[in-house]
């Protein structure tokens, strides 16, 4: 778990046997000042050529964990695990994105961070079958 202050990406992971997966984004802290179009975005990329070229992968379902009993609709066919709007809030938040058909040779997590002195502490974990 690290504090991230700029754009970056995780390690490239070969997934020869995975056909579906969920990405769990666990944000434990956030800070900074954010204007329009600024904040944190996290998404998954796949490669078809051993990591030379990367393509953005949309999830089939995406949502944010909520303690309330209010109904939550999954967002469908979105790129960002963080949802359609950029994440700009402090505190702990959990997001989940489900990829029902993961036909890529390799995957990696990518994130964009924009704002005034932005910092987000998070992990991205992929669980697949």
């Amino acid at each position, binding site marked *: 778990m690290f504090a991230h202050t700029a754009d970056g990406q995780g390690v490239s992971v070969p997934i020869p046997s995975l056909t*579906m*997966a*969920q990405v*769990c984004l*666990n944000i434990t802290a956030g800070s900074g000042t954010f204007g329009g179009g600024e904040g944190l975005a996290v998404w998954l990329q796949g490669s078809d050529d051993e990591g030379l070229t990367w393509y953005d992968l949309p999830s*089939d*379902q995406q*949502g*944010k*964990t*909520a*303690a*309330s*009993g209010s*109904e*939550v*609709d*999954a967002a*469908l066919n979105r790129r960002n695990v963080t949802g359609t709007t950029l994440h700009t809030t402090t505190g702990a938040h*959990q*997001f*989940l994105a*489900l*990829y*029902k058909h993961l036909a890529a040779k390799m995957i990696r997590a990518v994130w964009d961070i924009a704002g005034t002195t932005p910092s987000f502490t998070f*992990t991205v*974990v992929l*669980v*697949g*079958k």
Partner: protein
Amino acid sequence: MPIIVPKTTEDSFELVPLSLKNPTLFPGPTNWYDVGRFREGTVCVRIPKAVGSGISVVIWAQTTDDDPEHQPDDTLWKAFDLYHDNEMKSGDGTTRDNKRNVVNGAGTGSVPGSWRAIYKHLACRYLRLDFNYGGSFGGSDGFTWGARFVGK
């Protein structure tokens, strides 16, 4: 809270036994269950009885990105809400698609009832149920409910 791992021969098991539940009797989520060998699953909830007035319950499934080696104390496992492909209450005839709640608010007027939600791509390894009670519960008030998981 112990992790209950189903026997490898079981493709259907109890997530939570059928019994009277209210915020005092059953205040937190269920145990975690290992569903790693299933590629799709159904959560079936039955609520045969409700006692009280103006009370309600919402029930949904959660998963986690933790595992016994990474985090042996499962009380510290981080939970993530799961989204089903569709949910239907028996007798209603219509589905609710791509939502979180398996039981989206049951009150005394909607029981007895049974609900089932399907997860057509069960990528997760662990699953549990969380829930939320609404209204004011008297001492013996509550919902008699239980749930099972069917995996393939």
